[in-house]
């Protein structure tokens, strides 16, 4: 620490006012690697003139308080989540320099998924990864990087591969990914190694300034207290022992490699998004002011259409196999109803039930605002197969209207309680061009029988679907075929 205080970088606070206790000494133990790395980071920030631009993401671990020391903007993240936090901060502020600082428990254990995916996306970040082979902050438990045989408070007999697995080599692991720009491992321990570490840290920061993408430096770092060693022995241990499991070197360096890795996916735009003015948003969302929309249709036409009272305010269920267009029929009813001035709602069955092959939906057209969108007692049922008819017929109120495909259900259950329209919708649709439009045939029969919707409303609803003209024509053809079907009242 004394070395640090002698030549203090400008972006290293002279007095640690955020710290509790003595504001002139750091909270790190003598001989700890964190303090040295902080100093190199501060120097680089000074030299690159980026102090105003830096967003420093503090981990959970001994370096949770990096914000005591570095005179830059800070976000303190949850344990292991710094890469996720950094990802979004950088995307929100592409001109900032986001430095993600993590210990080995933070990065390689609890945060394994976050670092993997930030690297894989090639986020334009600098990650400084302090590998001290132990959990310092919580009192010296095993880390994923703890060496085989190393004694920690949770491996009292030494780490055993059989029970605890092998030390995780993070650089090599991430080295299999296409996106990272640069992955390097360095060690602290003697003047020469320290200088190499300093250089690697600077490079990882410069990469981000130049928009080169994801750079990570793994720094083998002494934890004398966790290891129960003197600072001098701990420094020796890093170089003599840790480096055997974690060989220093460049695992990947895109700019230096001939025909190296794919460029970071984020290079092109540098994470920058074209600015969109606030005023343009409604148009992008396709929002139209009420005055500009004219459906050419009279709204609230129920009085004039001459709808029989029993067909007013229909509460509709439509059901069939997946692929029979039941949900589509429902949305058409709702959209056409809306265009015709009804209050409407549409509620689908969703998820595995549909994938399993059946679908149904609830549709309500109402003069008053829709209360419950759930149709428990239906006044109208569209049933496109026998199971649907059997399942939902009991929900139809007496005198309700049941429209079913008589071609697919040639032998229906007792329908004397309701008004039934059996029409060979699928066969009629087939003649019109495709069995897929049986739903429109049934809709045609419904609007012809009840007059609940003018044909123009269905035409308008079809237009709103953005179908190709061929498909739209086919749908209309089917609708009209259904309307021509003579249903015995």
């Amino acid at each position, binding site marked *: 620490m004394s070395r640090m205080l002698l030549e203090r970088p400008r972006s290293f606070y002279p007095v640690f006012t955020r710290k509790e206790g003595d504001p002139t000494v750091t909270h790190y133990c003598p001989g700890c690697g964190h303090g040295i790395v902080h100093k190199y980071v501060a120097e680089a920030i000074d030299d690159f003139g980026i102090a105003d631009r830096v967003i420093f993401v503090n981990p959970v671990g001994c370096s949770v308080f990096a914000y005591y020391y570095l005179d830059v903007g800070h976000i303190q993240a949850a344990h292991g989540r710094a890469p996720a936090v950094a990802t979004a901060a950088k995307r929100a502020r592409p001109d900032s320099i986001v430095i993600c600082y993590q210990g080995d428990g933070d990065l390689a254990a609890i945060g394994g998924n976050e670092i993997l995916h930030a690297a894989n996306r090639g986020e334009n970040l600098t990650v400084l990864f302090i590998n001290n082979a132990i959990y310092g902050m919580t009192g010296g438990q095993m880390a994923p990087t703890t060496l085989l045989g190393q004694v920690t408070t949770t491996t009292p007999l030494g780490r055993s591969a059989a029970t605890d697995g092998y030390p995780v080599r993070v650089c090599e692991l991430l080295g299999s990914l296409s996106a990272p720009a640069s992955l390097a491992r360095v060690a602290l321990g003697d003047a020469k190694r320290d200088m190499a570490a300093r250089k690697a840290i600077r490079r990882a920061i410069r990469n981000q300034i130049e928009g080169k993408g994801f750079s990570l430096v793994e720094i083998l770092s002494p934890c004398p207290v966790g290891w129960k060693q003197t600072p001098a022995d701990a420094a020796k241990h890093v170089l003599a022992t840790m480096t055997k499991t974690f060989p220093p070197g460049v695992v990947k360096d895109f700019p230096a490699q001939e025909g190296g890795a794919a460029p970071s996916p984020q290079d092109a735009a540098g994470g920058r998004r074209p600015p969109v003015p606030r005023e343009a948003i*409604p148009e992008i969302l396709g929002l139209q002011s009420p005055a500009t929309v004219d459906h050419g249709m009279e709204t609230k036409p129920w009085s004039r259409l001459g709808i029989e009272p029993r067909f007013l305010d229909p509460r509709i269920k439509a059901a069939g196999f997946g692929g029979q267009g039941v949900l589509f029929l429902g949305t058409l009813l709702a959209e056409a109803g809306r265009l015709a001035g009804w209050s409407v709602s549409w509620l689908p069955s*969703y998820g595995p039930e549909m994938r399993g092959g059946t679908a149904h939906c609830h549709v309500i057209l109402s003069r008053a605002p829709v209360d419950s969108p759930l149709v428990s007692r239906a006044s109208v049922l569209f049933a496109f197969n026998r199971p649907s008819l059997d399942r939902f017929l009991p929900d139809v109120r007496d005198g309700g209207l049941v429209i079913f495909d008589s071609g697919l259900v040639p032998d229906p259950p007792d329908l004397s309680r309701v008004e039934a329209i059996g029409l060979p919708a699928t066969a009629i649709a087939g003649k019109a061009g495709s069995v897929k439009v049986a739903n429109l045939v049934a809709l045609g029969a419904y609007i012809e029988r009840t007059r609940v919707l003018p044909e123009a409303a269905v035409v308008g609803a079809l237009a709103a679907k953005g179908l190709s003209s061929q498909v739209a024509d086919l749908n209309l053809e089917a609708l009209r075929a259904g309307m021509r079907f003579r249903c015995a009242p």
Partner: protein
Amino acid sequence: MNPTLSENGDRRSQERLMKGNEAAIYGALMAGCRSFYGYPITPASELAETAARLFPACGGTFLQAESEVAAINMLYGASSAGERTMTASSGPGISLMMEGVSYAAGAELPMVIVNVMRGGPGLGNIGPEQGDYFQAVKGGGHGCYRSLVLAPDSPQEMADLTALAFELSDQYRNPALVLADGFVGQMMEPVSLPLAARVPPPRPWAVTGLPATRRNLITSIHLDHDVLESHVRQLHVKYERARRREVRYEEYAVADARVVLIGYGIVSRVLRRAVGLCRAAGIKAGLLRPITLWPFPSQRIAELARGAARLMVVELSTGQMVEDVRLAVAERCPVDFLGRWGGNVPSSEEVVDSIVQRMRERTGDEEHVAHVA
């Protein structure tokens, strides 16, 4: 009221048929939200899908995160950097986010989380349920904090309450939850949006990578006991302010009601119909629909308890909000409960039957029941 104008006089768009899940994204973008981080889950996935389409087009970020754990921490990063940001999920994913919500409450970060509730516990199923009420309104994560919780009953409110969630979240510097359910998320109804996009308020506390915010710090750690105690006290002063100012609810036919039904989300729609059916059958029923679940309309419920013969809470759960209703009522009148869960939703008729049956059980109400029978 002019239907083309919203509450605050903004001009509104032509209505469009939308799923609740889509509407929430439109509401968010008009509220100035510029990033969405999320992980797919039924019945919330349309939020992510709609966001993937619309956020980049509006100059924002959409990112499919590697997990809900990552997603909520991405919100933490985006919010820290000063951006209005959101995510959406359902039960299992929301559970994974709870650590992050606690951090955000501690660090006083605004963010909006939409929970389109499904059946639980565990993987449960994807049907509509309201079993996450406790998780949402009692904290959910660790520590002494609250989330602001809004409960939409329609696609229109999915848009409007998501937008409101952003305003409240910024105002209180606290996470806000939109607590929806599978039906409100999946159903379509006409939705109208404000025609002017909101300008989010400045966030001078954010860490932006700009000179003005260089000394800013976003953190939830306070080692000193006294410091943490006063920090949490200050959070609670804030929560008390929210309790005083932000309670929202809707009432229907309560003035002369002998039975006041209480339900939120999709249930309130079922209850509204049940009120109509009751009244047609001669039972004076009314409805209170909490719009904010936290803060909870306890005071209003206490008032209603003084006037009504009984209250009946209906939930898609084994009984969660009913505990808060009973706290508010403090034994002033009987509080009945009707619950369905597992993806089942009671029909309006089932609710009416239940009311009638309970009235029968009470001799004092015999004459009312006579009407119905």
